[in-house]
């Protein structure tokens, strides 16, 4: 573990801001380094010393402390009195307790009433078991109460709570299990308030009002950092991954492990995890229970049954469909079936050119597919009637509205190879979405 990371984790542990994952990471760091272990002990001793220093000053300043300590000891005696306990043992314990209580007097002197911290968000729509966390303490959350920087919100299974910020941004916390988020409230160098938070675990839904460019909203999870300028999205986090699903607008998801980032637009999602490639993918419909989605191959691997060759030469070899333009013309192949609502997945490769097209409804709607580097690329397209969302190797594709197309081509799927190029297609599947 790098020194800088250890310092960061140690500071978060000390301030009670560390998530469970960060505490586990700190444990790993400590396990590996005797120097880190020595420092953890030294730092904790410093803080214990500071509390003791504080208590010593309080004793000096408040003569009534002794009486308070004795009152506390009497109270402890009532708590601990046991008919079978030998008197001398209890007496010994009480004497020691008084001594210890005098040394550890922090309990007994009154602290000036704390002024409320500056709220940055207001709680609303609290249902179920919801707590506000201050350090390691929890208090029941109430509608209308404020949340300050450094505080956290925790919803138990089935509970829900929303935080509303002054600019109208709302963050709703809920989930099938515990969800926990911690707020931070720094300002950027220009003094602009900066919404920042950490989702330790669970699920949040956000509707974010436009944020200043200099202070985009930032949400951290164990594996990612999400940067938002104004959008609607859902973020789920576990100890091993984070998943952001964007309904509207655009966010940037950065994987903290390697710093890789991806832009996720409306209708797309991305997963930050050690085991999954960080990519923006179209949101696919979740089938209802009992009606599993039906996935089928678009080509049978032997011939071009179910397809009409419109231009060029097309063939099937070793399960790969290949199309070539003839005499310097383009090649085009069109499905006989309609594909109205579902998800297309296939692998494409083009040679002799850098571009091909996947068309829906003739030239009506199509995705130009570009090859910056040669090789197979995975195309995913979500089709929902007239809505199309496509990615190539996880990167969003630009949809082009061609504006032409006959009625008879509605729903048809077409692969298009440009002139002087060869387009290959394999592993092509269509999954019907079940409404």
């Amino acid at each position: 573990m790098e020194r800088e990371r250890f310092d960061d984790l140690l500071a978060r542990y000390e301030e009670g801001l560390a998530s469970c994952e960060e505490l586990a990471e700190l444990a790993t760091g400590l396990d590996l380094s005797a120097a880190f272990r020595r420092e953890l002990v030294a730092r904790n001793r410093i803080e214990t010393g500071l509390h003791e220093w504080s208590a010593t000053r309080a004793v000096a300043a408040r003569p009534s402390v002794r009486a308070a300590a004795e009152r506390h000891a009497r109270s402890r005696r009532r708590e601990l009195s046991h008919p079978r306990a030998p008197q001398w043992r209890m007496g010994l314990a009480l004497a020691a307790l008084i001594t210890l209580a005098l040394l550890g007097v922090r309990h007994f002197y009154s602290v000036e009433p704390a002024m409320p911290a500056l709220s940055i968000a207001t709680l609303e729509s609290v249902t179920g078991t919801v707590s506000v966390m201050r350090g390691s303490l929890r208090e029941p959350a109430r509608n209308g109460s404020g949340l300050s920087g450094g505080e956290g919100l925790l919803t138990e299974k089935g509970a829900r709570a929303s935080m509303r910020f002054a600019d109208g941004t709302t963050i709703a916390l809920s989930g099938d299990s515990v969800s926990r988020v911690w707020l931070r409230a720094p300002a950027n160098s220009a003094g602009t308030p900066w919404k920042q938070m950490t989702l330790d675990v669970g699920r949040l839904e956000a509707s974010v009002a436009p944020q200043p460019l200099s202070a985009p909203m930032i949400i951290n999870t164990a594996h990612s950092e999400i940067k938002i300028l104004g959008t609607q999205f859902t973020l789920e986090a576990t100890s091993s991954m984070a998943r952001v699903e964007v309904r509207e607008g655009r966010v940037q998801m950065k994987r903290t492990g390697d710093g890789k980032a991806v832009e996720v637009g409306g209708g797309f999602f991305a997963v930050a995890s050690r085991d999954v490639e960080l990519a923006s993918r179209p949101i696919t419909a979740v089938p209802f229970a009992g009606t599993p989605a039906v996935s089928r191959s678009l080509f049978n691997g032997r011939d071009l049954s179910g397809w009409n060759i419109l231009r060029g030469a097309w063939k099937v070899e070793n399960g790969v469909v290949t199309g070539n333009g003839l005499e310097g013309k383009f090649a085009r192949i069109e499905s006989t079936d309609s594909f109205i609502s579902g998800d297309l997945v296939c692998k494409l490769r083009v040679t002799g050119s850098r571009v091909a097209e996947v068309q829906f409804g003739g030239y009506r709607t199509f995705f130009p597919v570009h090859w910056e580097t040669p090789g197979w690329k995975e195309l995913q397209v979500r089709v929902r009637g007239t809505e199309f969302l496509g990615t190539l190797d996880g990167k969003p594709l630009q949809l082009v509205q061609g504006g032409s197309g006959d009625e008879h081509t509605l729903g048809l799927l077409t692969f298009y190879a440009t002139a002087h190029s060869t387009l290959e297609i394999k592993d092509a599947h269509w999954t019907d979405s079940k409404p």
Partner: protein
Amino acid sequence: MQQPKLTRDLLEHRQALLGFIFALTRDFDAAEEIFQETALAILDEAGAGRQAEPFLPWAREVARRRTAEHHRAQSQKRRAIAMPEVLLDTIARSFDENEESGEESRSRQKHLAACLETLTERVRRMIELRYHQCQSVGEIARDARWTTDAVHVALSRARKALADCVLKRANTAGAR
């Protein structure tokens, strides 16, 4: 009447034990409460004539169990987030490896008082608000017109500076 050795050991190592419990809980109120429970358990053992040598590892184990009970109770009350077991293990190991005597504890406290004087007025005030007046980071930030993150960073740096200063003074004193 002479105190049993366990009682003397307890008083001698009070701060070391309290520091250990604080590391496990990060909550000084809870640490004091657990320390008193631990003290009672140790005094019970002392009353029964038990000898525990060496004292500190045994006392830390007693404290560890009391802390686990505390965490369980807090978890049932849904008031606190328990630290992962793996971290509690490494903290216990860290303290096992870096034991200090009662004399070293007292010296450290003196060095700490001296080191506090070396802090800038602003940082010392922040330490005072945090540890003497028990203010939250949010309250300190509001009063100082700082961000909470800035206060967290300042406090962390101050603790590191104090730890370095105490170590330096201890080494200097040890070299004499």
